[in-house]
């Protein structure tokens, strides 16, 4: 569909007249199909580009040797069970259950009543990674940026079992 102005062949060629030098051809190419194709390609690349690079949650853990003594009264222990149930206790009190939805206000209130709060998170090994990330996310959102993790031991299991039966 390129509209090319083809020069008309001179009929009177070779009749003694001087052949006129051909002037610049007026070429007009219809670019619409090209635009179509280019637009298609653009749409393709726009749709396949991944703009949302994954987010990360940064964690700093203390070196192996560091041991910190903490006051029992300032120690908030969160125990997370396999089914996602959350139990909390201060020091050595009996654990109590808290719903995940209520966790953030609960943590904020705890932190307000004791700014020196030290949080210890114990997650049962069979719990999913998602639960753990969610808990850590809630802690971060509640401005508790310093917390520790500890293995969920048999002792914890017994404590929780006692709390449930009580």
């Amino acid at each position: 569909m390129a509209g090319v102005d083809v020069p008309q062949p001179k009929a009177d060629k070779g009749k003694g007249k001087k052949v006129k030098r051909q002037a610049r051809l007026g070429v007009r190419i219809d670019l619409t199909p090209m635009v179509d194709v280019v637009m298609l390609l653009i749409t393709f690349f726009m749709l396949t580009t991944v703009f949302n690079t994954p987010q990360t949650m940064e964690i700093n853990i203390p070196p192996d040797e560091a041991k910190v003594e903490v006051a029992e009264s300032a120690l908030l222990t969160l125990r997370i069970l396999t089914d996602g149930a959350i139990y909390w206790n201060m020091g050595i009190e009996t654990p109590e259950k808290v719903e995940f939805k209520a966790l953030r206000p609960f943590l904020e209130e705890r932190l307000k009543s004791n700014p020196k709060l030290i949080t210890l998170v114990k997650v049962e090994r069979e719990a999913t990674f998602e639960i753990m990330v969610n808990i850590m996310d809630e802690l971060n959102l509640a401005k508790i940026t310093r917390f520790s993790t500890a293995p969920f031991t048999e002792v914890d299991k017994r404590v929780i079992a006692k709390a449930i039966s009580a």
Partner: protein
Amino acid sequence: MVKKKGRVNIHIDMTPMVDVTMLLLTFFMLTTHFRPPSEAEVILPSSHSAFKLPESDVMTVTITKDNRIFLGLDSQYIRARLFGEENKLKQGIEVDKEALANLLIQARIINPKLRTVIKGDKAAPYGPVEDVMNILQKVKITRFSLVTDLERS
């Protein structure tokens, strides 16, 4: 009487349009990087954290939901050094928990700037994640990140 106008022959010059679209096309072609085929499919958990995953110098420890651990590095050179020439094109290599500590140390010797990220599947149990975190602690990587998706809420 107003004479009805006939069809007007319109010629639009498409050249500037092509210029612009070509520019856009080049931009998108250059910014696109296709998602590299990963060895293990992982569904990420979501969080409110807003830190972006760095593009380069990343060492990824992937934990799948069936408890397998993959170590991925973004540089072909380090992959060739660690896993052998034949494995350098693979994004991640399955590793044992016992071998992980050693590999992490070696990778960090080759490139001390490497940052460690843990990419755990949503449904992966916490146990292996805890083990990996303990290994990291043991090899003195005290700073690492967990890869998550942005929570939409």
